[in-house]
Every structure is written in C-alpha cells, then in structure tokens.
C-alpha cells in the first residue's frame, strides 16, 4: 500500500494514470467523507470509467480514516488542507487540479481552494458545504450527537436490524475513531471561511446535492455565496448520492472536467 508521510501522518493514496490521450491529462483529486468513509467510495465507483476517459486521478485516505494513520489530535479543517497540500507536492502534481469532495471531503476541498487558488482548476462538491461558522455549528452538533448515539449498545442493534451487520460493524469503527481522537471536538473548531473568503473562490464550482440530502431546505444556497457556482439536484437521493447514484455522478464529472454541457443534469432535472 503506497503511503506518503506528511504532517506527521502516513497518508495512504493511489495515483492512477488515465489512459493515454492527446495533450496533458487533467488531474482529479478525490476527497472522501468522515466516519466510515475511505478512498474506496470514490475508487470503486469512478476510477475505471474516468481513467478510460483519460483523467489522471489521486485518491487518498484522510488522516484518521481508511489505511492512513490515526493521530490522536490534529483534526482541524486546516490540518486536512495541509495534508492535501503535502500529498500533491510530494507526488509532484504542480498543475492546477480538479477537486471532487464528498460531504466533509468537499469542505476540505473548499478550504484548499481558498488557501491555494492557483492550484485549483475547479471544484465539485457532493452534498457538501464550505467550512463556515454556520457549517461548523451544525457539524459540531451532529458529531456530538453521533458520538452519544454510538456510545449506546441499542444503537448498533437498531442499525443491524435496519441496515444489516455490515453497517453496524462500520458504525463501531466510526465510534472508535471518535473515541480515540479529538476529531469531534476539533473539526468544528478551526478558523472558518467568511463571506469575503467565499467571494474570492472564483474557480468554477459544481454543487451536486440529493433532493432529500443535507441541503434539502436550500439546495441552491452555495450559488448565493460563491461567485461561479452552479447546482445540480439529483432527485430521490439523500446524503449518499455518491454511492447510490454513482453513474449520474460519474457522467456529471466527465462532462464537467471536459467542459461539456451537463447532459446528465438535464436528464435528471427533467
């Protein structure tokens, strides 16, 4: 398993080259979400079709997740942004990259784009928001609530009955991550972006949300605070859009990276 040591953490990554195409290949960096997530959710859904289309891809496990190491502390958004910076530098990726982030992964992507505007070509946020004070408040409450819920045995019995033993096992792992680290306390604590910071994120942003997802109340919120953002709402999907609607996400990403009209979006919205 390839790992790179950055910021006192061994980051597990996969650098996959797209099949040869004319001209320099675009690079897509995939950033997964919190808890039970890992690079697998992107790798197993997008790697093959995007590589076939000629896209270079970097997949990696966030600190504390997957096969990356799990330091006891160091979980502010800025720490995750510094890891991505260190990883791309170590891999010799110097051209601006397209970032795609799922849930918290998108939040990290916004943090990276704000700090390194010249290194980001575009950003695709799946069920995701930038790291603002409002976001931190909601995520902080969610993490505290999740930690309390997962400390009770009955929770796992309910998860097992409703979703199966597999999900119950993943939830136990997620609880260990929250118990053994300062993740729940640090993630909502760091310096956040304000409206002025957001107005300076001028790269093209595509926000993909599920009609029943975390942004169901105001799916077009990001278009109001980012200067160059458009939104695609995927109908009948919740927060798990990436996994449950991976074919639509794949089609949207391919159209987005190669600057084609978002055909999949028009179909979905019809």
């Amino acid at each position, binding site marked *: 398993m390839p790992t790179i040591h950055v910021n006192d953490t061994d980051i597990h990554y996969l650098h996959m080259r797209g099949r040869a195409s004319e001209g320099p290949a675009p690079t897509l960096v995939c950033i997964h979400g919190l808890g039970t997530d*890992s690079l697998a959710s992107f790798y197993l859904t997008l*790697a093959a079709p995007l590589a076939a289309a000629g896209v270079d891809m970097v997949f990696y496990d966030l600190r504390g997740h997957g096969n990356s190491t799990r330091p006891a502390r160091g979980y502010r958004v800025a720490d995750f942004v510094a890891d991505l910076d260190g990883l791309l530098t170590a891999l010799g990726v110097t051209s601006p990259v397209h970032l795609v982030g799922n849930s918290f992964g998108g939040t990290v992507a916004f943090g990276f784009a704000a700090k390194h505007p010249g290194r980001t070509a575009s950003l695709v946020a799946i069920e995701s928001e930038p790291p603002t004070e409002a976001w931190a408040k909601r995520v902080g409450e969610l993490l505290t609530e999740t930690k309390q819920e997962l400390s009770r045995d009955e929770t796992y019995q309910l998860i097992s009955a409703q979703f199966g033993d597999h999900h119950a096992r993943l939830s136990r792992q997620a609880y260990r991550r929250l118990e053994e680290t300062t993740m729940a306390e640090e993630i909502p604590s760091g310096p956040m972006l304000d409206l002025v910071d957001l107005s300076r994120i001028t790269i093209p942003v595509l926000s993909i949300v599920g009609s029943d997802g975390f942004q169901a109340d105001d799916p077009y919120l990001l278009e109001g605070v980012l200067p160059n953002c458009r939104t695609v709402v995927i109908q009948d999907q919740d927060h798990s859009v990436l996994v449950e609607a991976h074919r639509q996400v794949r089609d949207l990403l391919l159209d987005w990276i190669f600057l084609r009209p978002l055909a999949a979006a028009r179909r979905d919205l019809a």
Partner: protein
Amino acid sequence: MTAHESQVGSVLTEINDMINMIIEKYGSPPVQVTMDTLFHSDLELESIDLVTLGVMLAAHYGDEVSMAEFLAEKDLGEVIALRVGELVDYVVSRLDLTAPVD
C-alpha cells in the same frame, strides 16, 4: 480436471494468500476461502480492503486485472454481497484474454 478448472483453482489459491495477508494486519488467523465465501459477511472485509486486494491483484497479474473496472458497474448491495468466486471468475476471464494464442 480441465485446464480451466485448474486455472480457477490456482487463482483461488493465490487470492486466498492475498486475503490472508490483508486479514493478518487485523490480527485474524489465516482462513481457507471457497468460491462461495462472502467478502463482507464471512471475512468481515471492508471496501478499503477490496482496494488493497485490487492493488495486490494488479501487482501479481498486471494492470489488465483491475478491481476498479470489476466493481465500477456494481451497486453498493452487490459489492456488499460479493463472493470470492465472482472475483476469481473475473481474474480468470482477464487472464484468458491476455493469454498468448498457440
């Protein structure tokens, strides 16, 4: 035993060895898998372990054997219900394609 059955047996043994390398890091004792063993329910492997197995398969058989390609069209439920035999059959099919013609 036909040549195909022999190849299936050989790939199953090689994949069994790779699985044992993965579960060793969890402190689990070695297992003897069959074509019907389930990755998630029986072996308690997670998606990230399938990625690791994919890297090992590509290192052993070459890039023609791609876990990403094998799983790209499957839905989450199908990945969770994946049998070792499905992966063995996929690997054998890729090896058949790349085998030199006599």
